[in-house]
């Protein structure tokens, strides 16, 4: 007897979970590698991965998971940020009190805000570290040059997101950090003033005005920063992230040495013959990839399916990042100082930590520290993959002529130079202290920042000549700048007190 409608309904109800699963995933849970490949291809989010991943990718030292860590931190800030938006009111005064309420009254509000703040810090740190990793493993080379450029855009957006978030609590820390930031934006005025053309041509003032929407930091500035922080920059970042990941796949996965196949161990998981069956659309899609497809003419033994092996690795980094953010949030609260008060300047007023290296240079020349040198550095970094067209050492840590010894020597040179120049300027002052009447343009072009940049550039050219290699020069220059950045940042964070004077420790700061 055929089943009744009631029985069929019962049966349908029983299989509802499976039907739902199949409806969502189109195929149901994949059980074979082939099905998994098909599953990855067929999923909007997963198809950003290659279907099969080379075993080189799984070595922890290949990436240290830094890119995924940065993405994870971004996702954490995204989720916590949306939660915070439910309570945050982007208007002066109301903003401060709403953050107070988030801290004190909103259930888990303090915790969420702490996570948001720490995840943002982790993200900035991870992005810097990720950039250094890609540089030192020479992973930016053809065909990945453009992805490096996209990465530079992501770096700038990350800093922009962090900086715009700084103003939102509307406390003293926020107000005066943004004051510093806005004045840095205005720093081209130093040059136009010196040339006497500010009245007719004032790009610095214009940038500052566009940033603040007013001459003062007020409600216009707050709503601008809010809009940038919660909408414009995240959307741009999301779009660029998509391009970034898509290009990883299209450029053939992570960069690896030419002899990577030989150097990785045998696959720890049984490798099923994948492409022995009748070809399906996999081939057609793979044919779009530049170069030869990994499966054609070569054995695929040194690759494993992305699902599940790569996903475990990615999820592990993701959870580890969350663990770090949550742990930091339980230990240390996000700062919230007094209500913003334009009449009581913070002394010292410090920008966010990742800008303190710049602020240290700004103390000598606002234009060079705030605009000139950062622009040069960003342009220089962007040009690296276009100038370095060598192939030696791709995918290797400190790969290329010179290698680790060159990096260590460069680090020594970079550290000694920056510490020497800083120590000299702190001990003996600079042009302005010696010759009070010296024209500002002279100081703009002759200051510790520019001298440091010149020394690094000269050293780098020397390395290009000595090793007869652009990569060697890049290694030297990048290492030097990294050292300079770290030292200047530490000086700005720890050794600068009221009036930007030098103190061995914040405990020595004079009382107000």
């Amino acid at each position, binding site marked *: 007897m055929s089943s009744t409608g009631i029985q069929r309904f019962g049966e349908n109800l029983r299989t509802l979970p499976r039907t739902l699963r199949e409806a969502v995933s189109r195929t149901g849970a994949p059980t074979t590698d082939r099905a998994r490949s098909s599953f990855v291809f067929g999923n909007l989010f997963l198809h950003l991965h290659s279907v099969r991943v080379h075993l080189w990718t799984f070595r922890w030292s290949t990436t240290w998971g830094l890119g995924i860590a940065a993405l994870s931190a971004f996702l954490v800030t995204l989720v916590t940020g949306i939660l915070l938006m439910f309570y945050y009111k982007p208007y002066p005064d109301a903003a401060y009190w709403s953050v*107070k309420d988030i801290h004190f009254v909103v259930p888990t509000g303090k915790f969420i805000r702490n996570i948001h703040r720490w995840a943002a810090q982790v993200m900035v740190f991870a992005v810097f570290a990720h950039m250094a990793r890609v540089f030192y493993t020479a992973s930016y080379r053809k065909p990945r040059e453009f992805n490096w450029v996209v990465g530079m855009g992501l770096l700038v957006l990350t800093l922009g997101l962090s900086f715009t978030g700084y103003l939102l609590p509307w406390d003293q820390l926020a107000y005066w950090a943004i004051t510093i930031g806005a004045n840095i934006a205005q720093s081209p005025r130093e040059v136009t003033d010196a040339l006497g053309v500010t009245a007719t041509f004032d790009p610095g003032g214009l940038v500052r005005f566009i940033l603040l929407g007013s001459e003062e930091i007020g409600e216009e500035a707050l709503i601008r920063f809010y809009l940038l922080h919660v909408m414009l920059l995240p959307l741009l970042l999301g779009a660029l992230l998509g391009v970034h990941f898509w290009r990883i796949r299209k450029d053939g996965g992570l960069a690896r040495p030419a002899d990577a196949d030989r150097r990785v161990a045998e696959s720890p998981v049984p490798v099923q013959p994948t492409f022995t069956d009748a070809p399906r659309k996999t081939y057609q899609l793979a044919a779009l990839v530049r170069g030869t497809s990994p499966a054609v003419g070569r054995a695929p033994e040194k690759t494993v399916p992305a699902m599940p092996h790569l996903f*475990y690795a990615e999820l592990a980094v993701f959870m*580890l990042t969350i*663990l770090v953010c949550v*742990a930091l949030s339980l230990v240390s609260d996000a700062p919230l100082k007094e209500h913003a008060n334009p009449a009581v300047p913070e002394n010292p007023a410090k920008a966010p930590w990742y800008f303190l290296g710049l602020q240290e240079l700004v103390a000598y020349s606002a234009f060079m520290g705030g605009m000139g040198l950062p622009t040069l550095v960003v342009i220089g970094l962007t040009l690296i993959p276009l100038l370095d067209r060598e192939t030696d050492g791709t995918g290797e840590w400190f790969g290329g002529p010179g290698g680790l010894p060159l990096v260590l020597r460069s680090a020594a040179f970079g550290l000694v130079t920056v510490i020497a120049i800083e120590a000299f300027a702190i001990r003996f002052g600079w042009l302005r202290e010696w010759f009070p009447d010296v024209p500002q343009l002279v100081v703009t072009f002759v200051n510790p920042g520019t001298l440091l940049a010149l020394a690094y550039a000269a050293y780098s050219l020397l390395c290009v000549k000595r090793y007869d290699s652009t990569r060697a020069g890049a290694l030297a220059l990048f290492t030097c700048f990294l050292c300079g950045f770290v030292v200047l940042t530490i000086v700005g964070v720890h050794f600068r007190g009221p009036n930007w004077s030098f103190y061995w420790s914040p405990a020595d700061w004079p009382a*107000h």
Partner: protein
Amino acid sequence: MRANKILLLVASLGTLALLLVAVWRENVDRDWRRIQRDYRSRLEREAAAGFAVQLRQLYVPDLGATDRCISCHVGMAPGEHGIAGDPVLGPHPDVAHDPADFGCVVCHDGQGRATETADAHGSVMHWPHPMLPARHAWAGCGSCHTHVAVPRRVELAQGLALVERNDCLACHVLDGRGGTLRPGSAGVAAPDLSRVGARGFDRGWYDAHLARHETAEAETNGPWRTSFGPIAAEDRALIEAYLGSRVGAPELVTAKATFHELGCRGCHKVAGVGGDDGPDLTHVGDKDPGQMDFHRVPERTLASWLAAHFRDPAAIVPGSRMPEMGLDERQIELLTFYMLSLRRSDQPEAYWPKDRIRAERFGEREFATDGATLWGTFCAACHGPSGEGMRYPGAAAFPAAANPDFLAIASDRFLRETIVHGRPGRRMPAWGESEGGLRRAEIDAVIAHLRSLGGVPAPRETEPLRWVDGDAAAGAGLYAQACASCHGERGEGKEGPALANPRFLAAASAAYLVESIRRGRRGTSMPAFGAASPTHRVLADDEIVSIVSFMRTWEEPR
């Protein structure tokens, strides 16, 4: 591959554990939750059943108050009765203002929005308004009652003595005292007088009391008969002045009267009235401890800083010109207390108390405006309670304004101009309405009081102010011989005061200058040049005139 799986497991479990810690902290381990659970466990069963552990707040939009203090001090929440005697859970003491209508922070300061003990009490980094300590709680009245009028301190003491002597406290309660009827006498529950100054009282109270006293005489032996009797009119006036000062904060009134009595306003402005030799104190109780130097102060509180500062001003504020006043501990405590009450909140006008409206809208003074009070409040700190001139360690002596020799030749006009414009370059500030804030009538009252201190009537200014027309060149020579050693070669002042001061020369009449030289000034180093002396030669009248003529040349623009 396997390591990644293990890492994923460990990281996930670790995150889960930390989230559980966060959940526990949020839902169990909050100060206010613990305290409210404790409160509930100490309630009667029925009350406990209706009591929910929840965040509580007082919200008064007009005052900008969002005060969550009652989340811990739950006994002070509307509808709760509290646990008497418990420092945290006790009910709010009986005060004029219902906390439900005003919130907490408006009086006590602290951080009303905070829900953790340290943050709420405000003695944390980055909170500029820590709570007033309990012993100074009444200083919070100053946030709104900025202009409570106080009589002089001696009048307060006299008033209290009269209230006690006339047995008012037999029936009435006043500032927590009295209301104790004598044993064996029938009681009369009389009104509590502790806030009678704020509420106002029937000016016919004496006649009403007297009528009851006289009718009672015939009938019983009760308190109307035994405790009340006729009171002299001047005593009644003192009693009424005293009652007028009973606004529910007796210590604050005493402290303010002490501040006035010590003459602090001679150098310090409060609400636009006072000298400008020291900092304006209008907002001193609002100072942010985070912006202050506590290096030489025992405790990191504003009260501790103020007390240490009163003991030795220059030790706390290097370079301070404030003299060591030689205050006793009680005075230091009162002054500290009054300083803490000098705060200004910007409440909407609808919330202003009467005293503030009377002062800011109708110009009523917060001090009595008779000459003696004004002299004590604004002049005595430098010129002395009887005009004898104060001498503080390490500071130049202040002039004895009541010196009879001075008052005999200083006209009222000269005194008034000197008071109104001050003496630039010296410590005497200008007291005119736009500077020191004193009005014409008040300055005249001060002058009249000064005359009564000196006991010398005002000289009559009949001659023109500038009749001197002598030989300035000859005067220059005489000045160099006789005057320059003390007053400086160009009148810039050395041991003696500067004479080339433009304000002084503008105010001083020729007669004043001539007579000063001729008669000298007893009690100072200024000799009488018109009289014979072994130390200097006698100056003839025309020689004195020529000296004055020479002094007048300093007035001309150079």
